[in-house]
């Protein structure tokens, strides 16, 4: 009844091509933005920021990046944990070497460094495909983690081998270190998440994004119609790594504060990101946010129920989490291989006809 395009006449091409063609969607989008920017910062407390909001926003950025690679360009990568580590370590080196550099610049530069590293590891993708590539990206994962563990220059020769973020401010507010207000950290991450999502959404429907999708659907055919596979694949790797690097920098400096590479950026992180992409939905911006939200909220919820309500031991709860996450992945792939985003699409299609279906 309210959710339909009937009567909503488009009078120009830009209007016809807008991201949210249906009015209710548009209103919903603006309302969400308003709520996220103007209401949440005044309500957020330490627990919500650190348990839910910050990881959600940061993982969303990483998942958007990985989704560009897997969902839009069809290249499966299992090395995203390693690329997050590149982002984290370059932000650490930048923060300690140039104390006056603004945090915004630091985060963006870390993203750029990761983009270069990612493109280098993307080079084999020109020759190898599918599983072979997935396994080859594991090389990046193992090699990068080993590198940050062994070369002391990366962690400034600290005795513990850990990196910890020094205090930095943005516009006079602490953004890293123990004096950070949760609202400030939240807003900082939110600006990055929204800005990068906006860029990604528009990139995927531009020339570049269409080339990625052509490569995904059939790379030889794409090459025949004039898409340069070298440029398309490497740009996908670079852009995706930029996002993942920014997420890594934020995860380390704003969220964790201190990190050890094997623990914070190991294999399990790579898989977590892949799961977020699958559960959210391949090739969907909404799915990236939905997947990140789901995988962040779900363990918190499970833990609250099993440890908080039922009083079970934490190790049993942790094992159950594995079982349930595994079942969910398999279940999603069987029932809805395109994830939460596809469910959302189905719901919207139903809503269009509501309350008078044929």
């Amino acid at each position, binding site marked *: 009844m309210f959710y339909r395009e009937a009567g909503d006449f488009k009078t120009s091409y830009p209007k016809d091509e807008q991201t949210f063609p249906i009015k209710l969607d548009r209103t919903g989008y603006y309302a969400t933005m308003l709520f996220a920017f103007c209401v949440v910062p005044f309500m957020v407390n330490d627990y919500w920021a650190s348990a839910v909001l910050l990881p959600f926003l940061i993982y969303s950025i990483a998942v958007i990046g990985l989704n560009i690679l897997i969902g839009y360009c069809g290249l*499966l990568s299992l090395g995203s944990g390693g690329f997050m580590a590149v982002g984290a370590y370059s932000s650490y080196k930048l923060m300690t070497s140039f104390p006056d550099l603004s945090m915004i610049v630091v985060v963006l530069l870390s993203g750029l460094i990761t983009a270069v590293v990612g493109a280098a590891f993307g080079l*084999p993708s020109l*020759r*190898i*495909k*599918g*599983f*072979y590539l*997935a*396994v*080859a990206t*594991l*090389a990046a994962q*193992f*090699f990068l*983690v*080993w590198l940050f*563990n*062994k*070369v002391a220059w990366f962690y400034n020769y600290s005795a513990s081998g850990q990196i910890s973020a020094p205090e930095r401010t943005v516009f006079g507010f602490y953004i890293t270190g123990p004096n950070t207000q949760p609202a400030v950290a939240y807003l900082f991450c939110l600006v990055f998440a929204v800005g990068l999502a906006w860029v990604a959404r528009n990139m995927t429907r531009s020339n570049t994004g269409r080339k990625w999708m052509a490569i995904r659907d*059939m790379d*030889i*055919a794409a090459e*025949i119609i004039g898409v340069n596979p070298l440029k398309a694949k490497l740009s996908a790797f670079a852009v995706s790594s930029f996002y993942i690097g920014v997420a890594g920098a934020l995860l380390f400096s704003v969220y964790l504060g201190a990190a050890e590479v094997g623990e914070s950026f190991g*294999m399990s992180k790579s*898989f977590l990101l*892949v*799961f977020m992409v*699958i559960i959210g939905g391949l090739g969907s911006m909404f799915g990236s946010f939905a997947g990140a939200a789901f995988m962040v909220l779900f363990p918190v919820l499970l833990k609250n129920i099993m440890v908080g309500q039922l009083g*079970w*031991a934490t*190790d*049993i709860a*942790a*094992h*159950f*989490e*594995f*079982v*349930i*996450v*595994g*079942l*969910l*992945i*398999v279940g999603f*792939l*069987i029932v809805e*291989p395109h994830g939460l985003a596809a469910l959302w699409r189905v719901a919207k299609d139903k809503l269009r006809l509501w309350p008078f279906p044929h």
Partner: protein
Amino acid sequence: MSAGFYFGMEVFLNGMMAGVMYSLVALGFVLIFKASGIFNYAQGVMALFAAMTLVGIQTGQVPFAHLINTIFGTNFHHFGWHLPAFVAILLALGVMILFAFIVERFILKHLVNQEPIILFMATIGLAYFMEGFGDLMWGSEIMKMDVGIPQGGNLWIEENTAFLGGDDFYGFYLDTLDIYATVIAAILVVALVLFSKYSKTGRALRAVADDHQAALSVGISLRAIWVIVWAIAGFVALVAGIMWGSKSGVQFSLSLIALKALPVLMLGGFTSIPGAIIGGMIIGVGEKMFEFLIGAPFLGGATENWFAYMLALLFLVFRPQGLFGEKIIERV
């Protein structure tokens, strides 16, 4: 001949042995990939699960003891028996066959005709599930595997090779367990090759690997073949689990051997059984030698974690289908 040369030789031999252990895991991958085109990431966790089940059955642990105790407030952990290794292995094999049925019935059946990448991700989900399930069932402590395979340095080889070097050379140090593993892997490979060449089921397996639809049209049941293949892969996982478990205890890190087997596969080709063996040897020797010659002296050690991957990666750039893989032909 200097002592350094002999030490290098010893590293080489030990690398061969380690390579055999990798191949044991890689074999399971190849079997499933050939028969169903599924890249089974869960193979490593299957090995862990099989080993845990074996130890659990052998020592008479109550499955899900912790969970039951937590929910019902009871307190029991053991049935109080200790089975002979042979019986326990048979029972564990039974569990793996049952597992094959369950996987086929609840996962594969529903994912027929999906893209390979979706199936791959499903096996990652399966790996997560089994990891948690195994821990719930048998507990997450490190368990000791004892099925009667002798361990420790092999004195006979050590004494009989000592004459090769000078006074500072005491003979090659080889672990008896590794020698057993090599022999068992050899038997396993020969048996599998014979099985797939000369038995009726083996022929059906190869037919399915060639072309699913053609195999269906001549009356081969895909579902039965999948169960058989997963059961065989479960058996291979059990063997790998026994070997690795006896070597380093049954614990979570056992499932990570799957990650070691992946570069072996890339090198040897996903579709070739001999490729898995030879790839395993190359990786095993390569990483030990690299660590010995370059890694430890110049790079700060622990290069074993990534060397195999880098080697496979470089190799793939020149030969994308691996050493023995079928040539990849693409049509638009």
